């Protein structure tokens, strides 16, 4: 996936910081949208999980902003961090949400996002010509790999649900 023209062009350390920042911020926004959906559909356990995930991604975003120092990473991100037809790598897939989804589903969405981010930063490592960009991209790869491990560890707490997880005793039905 990373080897497509949809990836933002990374020409400098500033570009990479901006894209890495935007990836985290997009993830925050997406998890909050999902938390709002679960709130509306009275699934409090999932509200908490999505809010926690949003908070975690927000902390990562803040760390990147701090790393950028005086450089205005927020503004630069808005100009260059575009992923074309695809969404930002860590944005959880909205179309996979379900009002009766379980923590396992939420963590699967998160895992998929972390893996996409890992693939993306690995691509930056492979293609970077500037040693500083390469070094930062390697750090980001390492960080995303840690997140993958962390989500996998969390998944041990939440085994896959039964096949009947979406069975609703009062389902939406076609009008008779």
């Amino acid at each position: 996936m990373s080897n497509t023209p949809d990836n933002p062009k990374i020409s400098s350390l500033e570009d990479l910081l901006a894209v890495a920042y935007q990836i985290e911020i997009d993830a925050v926004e997406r998890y909050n949208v999902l938390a709002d959906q679960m709130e509306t559909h009275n699934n409090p356990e999932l509200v908490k999980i999505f809010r926690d995930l949003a908070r975690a991604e927000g902390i990562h975003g803040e760390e990147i902003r701090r790393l950028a120092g005086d450089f205005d990473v927020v503004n630069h991100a808005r100009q260059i961090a575009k992923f074309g037809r695809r969404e930002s790598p860590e944005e959880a897939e909205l179309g996979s949400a379900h009002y009766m989804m379980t923590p396992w589903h939420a963590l699967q969405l998160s895992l998929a996002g972390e893996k996409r981010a890992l693939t993306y930063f690995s691509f930056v490592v492979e293609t970077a010509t500037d040693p500083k960009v390469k070094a930062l991209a390697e750090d980001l790869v390492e960080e995303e790999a840690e997140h993958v491990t962390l989500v996998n560890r969390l998944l041990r707490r939440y085994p896959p649900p039964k096949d009947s997880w979406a069975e609703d005793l009062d389902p939406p039905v076609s009008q008779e």
Partner: protein
Amino acid sequence: MSSVSTRLAHKPADYKSDLKPIWCPGCGDYHVLMSFTRAFAQLGLAPEKIAVISGIGCSSRIPAYTNCYGFHGVHGRSLALAAGLKVTRPDLTVVVASGDGDGYSIGGNHFLHACRRNIDMTYVVMDNRIYGMTKGQPSPTTEPEFDTALTPGGSGVAPFHPLVVALASGANFIARCFSGEPNETADVLAAAITHPGFSFVEILSPCVTFRPDQKEWKELVRPAPVVATNDQGKAARRLMTDDGFNLGVLYRGDRVPFQPAVGASDTDLSVLEKDFEL
């Protein structure tokens, strides 16, 4: 087009209201809302200079979720409302949101004449080929064999082809998007808004509740293998042979938009009032 500094002055979040959408989780309309706000931010439009007009249905809830001016109108009548607004307030960016039931069935006649009039506004139809809000009746774009409780074995009626109808009726810009590609959809919406005249954008927006089969749309959609044309004949051939999953701008016409002169009326209202006196 606004300057770079103006464009950067607005973030997509600036166009969102505090109301949380009540669509079903997984609904394509969440992505469409995202595309609206991204397109507005991309164009640097001030929220108070945009009016989002709608009719009735799941898709028509969108004005409430934006921070722009909005009007959640009567079933199928969004285009009539929007046309009235745009001719009297040409300074506003008017975007109309509808669904396949609201827009093609109840509002079908307005659709034809809105295309024909070519008033400078953008009509977005979120097509999920079902009436979702009223729990799953077939709409004008439902496949003939699609089985519902109301139409066992399918309706047996061939679906309406909105893009062909739009072209034949005079729409000046025709595009198709997929809700699952919000960035691309935002770009198309921005192009539709800036194109003069009546722009029609069909967005394939899956209904996860009544049409779970539409999850496969993600695998079926692809960028149209052709660039937009301004040749109606060529566009007609393309659209007539299209399988419904080619995405992008498919037609860009060059008709001059209809915009009556706005100003003080010559009619003395007191004369009219007298005529209607009981």
